[in-house]
């Protein structure tokens, strides 16, 4: 496996509150990474920094060996991002949003977008403001997938999904993507779901990575479920 992304000495504070402290990680292509952490531990912050939504205070991010900065945008053509709170332009229709996005992504897959809308039962004529949070999450997922990303960041997307969609998402979509070689960073605090798909485990605590390892090995080492491992790790460090 080749290294896709490397984060070095990344720090980010909000006011006087540090959220990420000297964060280091290397992401290899084709893997499903699970990023676990309690609320407010910096999972969303890390996702936003990677997507260039907010700048890091210090630190470097290298994508395919090339340093990327807050001002860069080209690398995002290969990134997909499904945020925790999927805010779009409310006055747009679903079709309008897809057309708008299609202009930005060279590998935009219209067929995929159409089939995902069907899969998620989204009417392209609907205005975004009429959608529920769960439907917006599905739409966010459809947008991210249609861009055919090499690296997909999922920031706790399943919390707002209904059970069948969550099942579908976890069982089929993630596996499908993983099989196609897409690297996935799945940030969540819902460990049960993560356990079913994760290959590499990252645990954030106190702004730092306290676990960065092969999930099977971690599991074998602790001889426990992921939930128990997570609780014990976070409790130990606390």
């Amino acid at each position, binding site marked *: 496996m080749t290294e896709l992304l490397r984060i070095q000495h990344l720090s980010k504070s*909000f*006011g006087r509150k540090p959220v990420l402290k000297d964060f280091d990680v290397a992401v290899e292509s084709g893997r499903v990474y699970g990023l676990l952490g309690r609320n407010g531990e910096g999972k969303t912050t890390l996702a*936003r920094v990677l*997507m*260039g*939504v*907010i*700048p890091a205070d210090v630190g470097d991010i290298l994508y395919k060996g090339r340093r990327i900065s*807050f*001002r860069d*945008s*080209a*690398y*995002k*053509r290969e*990134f997909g*991002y499904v*945020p925790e*709170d*999927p*805010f*779009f*332009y*409310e*006055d747009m229709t679903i079709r*309008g949003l897809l057309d*708008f*996005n299609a*202009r*930005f*992504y060279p590998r935009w897959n219209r067929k995929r977008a159409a089939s995902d809308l069907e899969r998620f039962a989204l009417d392209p004529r609907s205005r975004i403001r009429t959608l529920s949070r769960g439907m917006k999450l599905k739409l966010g997922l459809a947008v991210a997938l249609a861009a055919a990303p090499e690296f997909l960041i999922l920031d706790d997307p399943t919390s707002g999904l209904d059970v069948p969609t969550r099942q579908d998402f976890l069982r089929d979509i993630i596996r499908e993507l993983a099989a196609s070689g897409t690297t996935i960073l799945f940030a969540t605090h819902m460990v049960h779901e993560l356990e079913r798909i994760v290959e590499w485990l990252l645990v954030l605590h106190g702004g730092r990575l306290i676990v960065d390892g092969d999930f099977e090995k971690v599991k074998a080492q602790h001889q426990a479920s992921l939930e128990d491992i997570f609780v014990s790790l976070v409790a130990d460090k606390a």
Partner: protein
Amino acid sequence: MFTALYFKEWKEKALLFFFELGILALLILAQFVLREKKDIQEWLIYGMLLLFFPFAALILGAAGFEAEYRQGAWAYLFSRPVRKAAIWLAKFAALLSMLAALWLVFVALWVAVPGIRELVGGTRVMLGFSVESEFPWWSILQSGFLMTVAFSLSLLHERQFNILFVSLGVGFFLPTAAWAVMNTKAGGFMAFLAPSKALPTFLLCQVLIALAFAASSLATLVRSDFSQPRKLTLSFVRWFTPLLVLALACTAAWAILIPGPAERYLSFLGSSGGEPYYITPRGVFKYSVAANRIQWLAKAKHVNYFIASASGGKIAYTAFNIKSRADVAEELWVVNSDGKDRKRVLGRGPRESEWPLERPINDLMISPDGTKVLVLAQSGANRPEVRAVASEKSPLWIVKLDGTGLENLPDDPALFGNPSERYCFHLVAWAQDGNAVLISKRTFRQPMTFSLWLYDLGNRTARIVLDNAVMASWLSPASPRGDCLAIKYQKDPEKPWTLALLDLKTLATTDINDNTGEPVRLWSQISWDQKGDRLAYVIRRAQEGGPEVYVLAVYSLAAQKTVAEKSMTTSEASALLFWPSWTADGALLLVLDRAANGLRVLGPDLSEEKRIAFPESLRVPVSLHIVGANALVEDDQTDTLWRLDLSREAWKRIY
């Protein structure tokens, strides 16, 4: 990507745009419905230019980042593969095009309704600005400025209403404050010296401040963290503060250093030794024949270009020394014609009480021997003198060029003394070997009268030389030898003015007749050849059963008759602009002919040899002076000076 963002903005703000368009349509409709009520129409136009467009711009600008704030779409937008600068630019371009679309509607109204121009003109008067253009560019700029400010600030705050009012306050306060500073002592007394520059300064200030806002906003968007509002605002302030200072400094530098419409001027002063002298806001220069280029003689600010003199290798001029608005002193300076030995003859100093500062200098002449300067100080050349108190000092002063021997020449009641009379004077020429001076006097009673007087510097008395007489032209009426003056006079007040020569030694007059033996009715400037042997001018001659014809004529002093004539035109407008001038060797006569858009080159017998067209950039040619192998022409519109190389027929702008 840019276009995707641009059209997204248009779609997003379409409702707002059409709402504003609807209001504009209603205002325009009211214009037509109320066309009989001019006063209401006028207020509607005022409302449009002063309220509608600025507020429409403010509302559009304040909505710049409204969707991102209201719908929380920051993260979504920034996570797209598009440069943040492109996001900013697309938004700004979309809003600007909406504002431009609103303005286009007004432009259509402007084109379609002729009466609208007069109504718009009223706003210019109301604002107290002196604007050349009829079209309200100032209002376009104003609305563009306010939109930029509001758009820039919309990045920092989610409440549009607050942004709108802050933008309004900031938008008016900053340029107004800057403009006020420009009008103080620190601003170089700009308003005092050049009130017509006030509006351009205000507009420049607005443009630069708008750029400061825009650049700060752009830099903040590209570099800052939107999840932290306080940091965002601080980042904006950090960018904006130095840029604002820079904008104000540039405005001040422009206002002080670059001449404004009223500050830029070029004025022909006179010729001495075949070299013409000019005055500009930067001082005095001459065109040097030897060097074949402009030679700066005196770099001086606030030269009073109306009055100066070139004689005997010396140049005298007056300039204002301004310490404050209330403390303005006029100074008399002298400099050698090679630019050396510049010296202040009179002005501030220990002898200030002696100086006739209470009256501005209106005229001066250096004596033929180049040792003294005669000064005429009265209440302005264009304002008639009212001598209410007979005991006041006379307007004539004389001083040596080293600054000593300042003397107020005694009043001669015959010339200066009637307190009930309104009149003005002009120094015409030295006479009688420098022992007397010829003075032109114009009274303001109707009908106006003109007379030529001789003031004897020996016995300090004045006597009339000719009644109903005036010099033939304001520029160089005296021959280069200084022995003869071209004048216009009326033998009988009922008869037309005729051209004559006045001998400056004997004061005898010689009438100039044309080829038909009739007295000459002078029409144009006169031009002496460089030896003072011949005089060229344009006369007006009646034709039987047809329009008057304008004839170029040459008078020879040796032959004492008109030696050549050439009919030039029957158009009074064309003839009005003729300006003849001899070449240095006297072999050719050039005539500036604006109607023909060029110089006409004529032989000694006035046969036309060729025409040399003006360059396109020379818009309003005036005053033709031949210097060596070159012709110099001023552009009255742009106050530039152009040189024509007569041998190569090549034009070049030299000032």
